[in-house]
């Protein structure tokens, strides 16, 4: 089968690999029909996530058709169409029973920091990902959600990660009616965080980025105010000016470890890799949140540490909230929003590219070419 695999920093190659096998009684094998490149895949691609082995298959956003079921699978059968959350969760551990499936403790033997995740290094369990024709899905009675009849894979594909991640970010901000929300980042997760902030009753949503085409997209897709931080001398001062000098009620970091905007953070965190990426978006969130406000981190940061302005956060009495998205608990609710037309999830797809050309897709997405917002990969066996 074809699979998009890691070859070293900044290099992906599509290769032929053996098809996966059932390895646990509750596994299924899924024939992938749609898969997407996530912004967090770029952190893998750029060498920020430890124990990313050459040859591993990327991809944690995918949907497909069940091809084979393990002997203990009860809720799925061959031929079912499903979308799969990126967290691999057992369903019955301490965390899963509290609906924290992103913190499952039964699926990742290599690190306690996260659950197992498809195609996201051996730090998250060493599972091959879904940017392939076939993928093994463990605990099939827990994670996958059947795609309702009449809905296309692309309409629900982003329930696998970026839509629940954006929604959970807004939710962790404890947004109250009329509050002001700043979202750093207008990538796919940032766009869904902005949309979710409106659904949760925000009075004002301000999107921050340095790519004008993404800011323009955010304005038309979400109706938000925008700030291009490369067009102002001091982005934090400008955001404070926009929020009556007091700051926003809620700030959301939807950027992660490769943030631009600080020369020192970029040199030490991104170029020299002396810390786990640049914490610029976190520090700007802390600086532009009002006293007593909420800062939410959903951007991905690798271990072990970052230069975060925690003293300012403490003195301002901020509440910092963060987590991997617990996708499973959000899927039915967000499906309802998609069906009601409140969220046009597939509206952010700008590129559909054959899986065999995944290298080109990564180039477009990583280097922000051709107005790229979101790339979906189409395996050769799937209908276009």
């Amino acid at each position, binding site marked *: 089968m074809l699979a998009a695999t890691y070859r070293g920093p900044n290099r992906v190659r599509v290769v032929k690999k053996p098809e996966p096998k059932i390895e646990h009684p509750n596994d299924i094998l899924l024939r992938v029909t749609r898969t997407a490149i996530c912004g967090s895949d770029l952190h893998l691609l750029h060498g920020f996530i430890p124990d990313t082995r050459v040859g591993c298959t990327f991809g944690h956003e995918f949907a497909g058709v069940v091809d084979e079921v393990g002997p203990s699978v009860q809720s799925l059968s061959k031929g079912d169409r499903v979308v799969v959350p990126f967290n691999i969760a057992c369903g019955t551990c301490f965390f899963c029973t509290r609906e924290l499936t992103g913190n499952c403790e039964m699926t990742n033997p290599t690190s306690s920091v996260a659950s*197992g995740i498809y195609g996201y290094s051996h730090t998250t369990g060493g599972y091959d990902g879904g940017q392939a024709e076939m993928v093994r899905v463990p605990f099939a009675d827990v994670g996958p959600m059947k795609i309702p009849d009449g809905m296309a894979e692309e309409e629900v594909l982003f329930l696998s990660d970026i839509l629940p991640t954006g929604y959970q970010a807004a*939710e962790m901000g404890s947004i109250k009616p009329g509050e002001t929300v700043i979202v750093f980042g207008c990538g796919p997760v940032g766009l869904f965080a902005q949309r979710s902030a409106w659904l949760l009753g925000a*009075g004002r949503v301000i999107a921050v980025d340095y790519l004008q085409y993404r800011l323009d997209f955010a304005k038309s897709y979400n109706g938000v105010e925008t700030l291009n931080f490369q067009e102002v001398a001091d982005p934090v001062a400008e955001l404070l000016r926009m929020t*009556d000098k007091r700051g926003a009620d809620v700030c959301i970091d939807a950027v992660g470890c490769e943030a631009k905007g600080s020369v020192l953070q970029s040199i030490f965190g991104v170029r020299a890799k002396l810390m786990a990426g640049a914490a610029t978006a976190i520090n700007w969130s802390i600086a532009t949140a009002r006293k007593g406000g909420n800062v939410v981190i959903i951007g991905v940061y690798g271990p072990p540490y970052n230069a975060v302005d925690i003293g300012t956060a403490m003195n301002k009495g901020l509440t910092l909230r963060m987590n991997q998205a617990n996708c*499973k608990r959000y899927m039915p609710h967000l499906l309802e929003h998609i069906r009601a037309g409140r969220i046009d999830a597939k509206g952010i797809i700008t590129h559909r590219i054959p899986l065999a050309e995944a290298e080109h897709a990564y180039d477009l997405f990583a280097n922000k070419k051709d107005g790229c917002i979101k790339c979906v990969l189409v395996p050769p066996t799937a209908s276009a």
Partner: protein
Amino acid sequence: MQENDHSIRGEEQRRRQSMRDLGVDAPFDRRPGVPMEASPPHPMGAAHWQVPERQSDPGNILKRAGLEELTPVFGTSLPPRRLSGLMRRAAYKTPEHHTAHWLTLLLADRVDVLEHNLGVVGPLALGVGAAAGAAAFVAKMRPRRRRWPFGR
């Protein structure tokens, strides 16, 4: 709906009115993740076990320090091999709250790339150097008893 003092006016209000179903999830009981820890605890999805069955151990899967046995499921892709594999085995003997654990893994990643791109000799030399560097780093980071410089 109560607004705060730097909230919507004019243009923002028009934007809000153009969005469908604004504030539909404003009531906290409409939010699926509130409170963050669901109570009472209950199985997720269609899980029909209390303790999941275990995947068979192929014998070449690394696990973190302090974990007595592999988790019930795990990925089996790309078992550790060659010099990078040795470095990874060493890294997983160090607890993950030690910086050396992560730095050794990152070094192993670079050696892994070299192993795939340059054959055997180059990464061997680099790996020996990297392992020596990592060992020196670990030794330097290890807390040691310091002598009081003023004679006590």
